[in-house]
Structures are given as C-alpha cells and as structure tokens.
C-alpha cells in the first residue's frame, strides 16, 4: 500500500509544501497560482493531484508534504466520493493536523443539504478543519489562498509555539447534535 507519510523525508529549510487534491482540477489551478503569488517570506511549493495514491514514479523526487488539502465541490457527488476514496491512501499521522478540507459551492441552491451534512460528519470524525471557499470571484480565491497559507505556515513549523496538531484541535470541524434535523429554509 503506497501510503503518503508525513515524516518519511527530511524537511527543507525555509520551504513549505502543500498538496491540493481535487477531482475536477478547475479550482486547484487558480488556487495554486494565487497561493504562489501571495507575498510571503517562505518558499511555497504547490503540488496538484486528482486523487491519491500519488504515482510511484515521482516518489524519489517528491519533497515532504506539509499540508494536504482535499477540495470538495458540493455540486458533484463524484468529487465527494473520490475524496473519500483518496483518504484511505493517506498515512494516519497526517490526520494529526496536516490535513484540511476545503468545500466550494456550498451556497448553491442545487446542492442537496444531505451532502454537506455528510461531508461535515466525515470531517468531524477525522478531527480536521473544514473551510468554505468561494471559487467564482477573485476575492474569494484570494481569501481561501490566504487562509491556506496561514495553516500551511503553522504545519510547516514556521510559526513559533504552534504546531499543526494544536491548530487543528482548536479549529477542527464539529457537528452539532441536531444536524439531521437542520432545515435551511
């Protein structure tokens, strides 16, 4: 089983690596470009993937991944399922703060509310943070890029006195007990 392990490689100086996993590849590209263009003091490498497991050929050249972001588009069921499947190929050590979920199109009226509920339950069971992003406007993409950069800085060790585990235990997604009866009318 080719699991992606967080501590199997040595970290590089002043560098942070983020992996964006999205089934549809539309938002990843824009987000990646925005992240790279943000002003920062750290060298950020953005890697894109459609799903895990990552191809074995690049195993040697791939650096240590500090943050894995699963992008789920709520308007397609396939996106959610592919993310679920990819989760199995991630080493459990990643879930201690180095995984983040990003959801787009949550405001879309055609989205069945059960999908969002099931995403929330999944993310809450994994104790990971859940972010919502607006992918149609540049402002939304900018905001999402800033937030991901902030989390990335913490998980790659660039913020003193904070680690990914600490941050995720503060910002993790929780599910209210009455979520099944929630009515968004």
């Amino acid at each position, binding site marked *: 089983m080719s699991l992606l392990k967080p*501590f199997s490689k040595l*970290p590089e*100086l*002043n560098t942070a690596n983020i992996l964006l996993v999205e089934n549809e590849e539309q938002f990843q590209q824009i987000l990646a470009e925005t992240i790279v263009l*943000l*002003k*920062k*003091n750290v060298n950020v490498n953005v890697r894109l993937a459609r799903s895990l497991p990552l191809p074995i050929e690049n195993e040697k050249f791939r650096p240590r991944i500090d943050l894995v972001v699963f992008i789920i588009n709520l308007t397609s069921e396939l996106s959610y399922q592919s993310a679920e499947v990819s989760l199995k190929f991630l080493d459990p*050590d990643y879930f201690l703060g180095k995984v983040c979920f990003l959801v787009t199109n949550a405001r879309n009226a055609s989205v069945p509310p059960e999908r969002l509920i099931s995403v929330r339950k999944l993310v809450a069971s994994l104790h990971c943070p859940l972010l919502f992003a607006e992918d149609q406007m540049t402002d939304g993409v900018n905001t999402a890029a800033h937030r991901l950069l902030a989390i990335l800085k913490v998980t*790659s*060790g*660039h*913020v*003193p006195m904070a*680690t*990914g*585990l*600490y941050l995720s*235990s503060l910002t993790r997604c929780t599910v209210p007990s009455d979520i099944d009866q929630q009515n968004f009318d």
Partner: protein
Amino acid sequence: MDRLEDLASSLETLAFHGFQTPTVGNGEKESPAIEILRIKEQMSNQCFEMIVKLQSGESKRSCSASDAEKDLPDYVNTLEEAEITHFNKTLALHRMQVWHVISEKLKQRDPEAEAMRKLTNHSLDLCLKIKTLQQESFELQDQITALQKQRLDLKRLTHEKMKEMEELKTKGEHPVAEEYRNVLQKAQSYLEKYQKMVAIEQNVLRGIIIASKVNWREDPKLREIAMTLEDITIPDD
C-alpha cells in the same frame, strides 16, 4: 564597523524580545539575523513534531476510539490552561518591565521626564478629587436612605392610626347611638302626643267658628287663624 554595530544593535533588540522572531510583514525585507533566527525556529518546531511522533509511537497502549474521545477534552483543557497561564505570566513580565523603565525614566532630568512627572501629578490630583467626590456621594446616599426609612416609618404609623380610627368608629357607634336612639324615640313620642292635642284643639276651634256662623273672611285676624286651620291634618303614624 558600521555593519558590526548594526548587527549588534539588532541582536540586542532580539535579546530584549526574548529571542522570538519579531513578526515581519509578509514579503518585507528581513535582516539576515532575523532570517537565521526564523529558520532556526522552524527547525526546532519540526524537530519537536518529530520527537512527539516518536514518543507517541513508543507508548502504544491499546484503547478504543471512544476512550480516546473521552480523554480528549481533558487534554485540550489542560493545554488551554497552560497557554493561559503562560500568557498571563508574559503579560505580568511585560508589565514589570514597563514599570521599571518608567520609574527609571522618572528619576532622570529630561524634558520627557518632566512631562511624565506633570502627568502623574495631574492624575494623582484627579484621583484625590475622585475620592472626595465619591465620599460625598456615599454620604448623600446614606442620608437619602435614612430619609426613606423615616418616611416608611411614618407611613406605617399613619396606617396604624387609620386602622385604629376605623375600629373605633365601628365599635364606638354602638353605645352612643343607643342613648341617642332612646332620647330620640322619647322626643318623638312627645312630639306626636302634642301634635295630636294641637290637631284636636284646632278641630274644635274650626267647629266653633263654623257653628257660630261668623263671617271670618272679613276680619283679618280671624281670617288668618281660619286659614291656618285649613292646612292642619292629623299626623297618621
């Protein structure tokens, strides 16, 4: 030489900050000292993470997920409490540092120190004034409460007096009214008796005038008397 001085001064500021990198804005130019420090902190952070991972791998005890879930909030609470105490202690430390600097400054003879001294004196005066004003307001408040107590007492007393009066009214009516009624009845019986007597005498007089066939209309005195006789009726009780 200048470069060394710059470096020395920047190291001094770093030492003052407790060897934590001052956060530079994203994208701004960093001095090499700060950059080195930042990278060093990054490395120590990553080493810390790896040490934690190794330690967690060593003590592998088999517990279920629900047990872990139960323990989790306790650990999070201890973490938060540690954070909070650390933060409070840093705050206290900073406070002490600031106070020390201020007191040192006040002892000097700068124009700044003069301004500071004036400010402290002014604030002391204001505090004294505040104290006296507060004292006065407390006294006034006490007076107000004393007056309110008195008013309440008076109200209570008046209520009691009113109640007494009402009781007396309902009770005292009886003995006085008894005598009054008796006297009234007696007087009424006398009045009736005399009224009857007067009526009878008037009837007799009427009979006499009619029988004697005197023309009482012509004589004014007789006419007066005769007119009064007409109105009389025997009271019927």
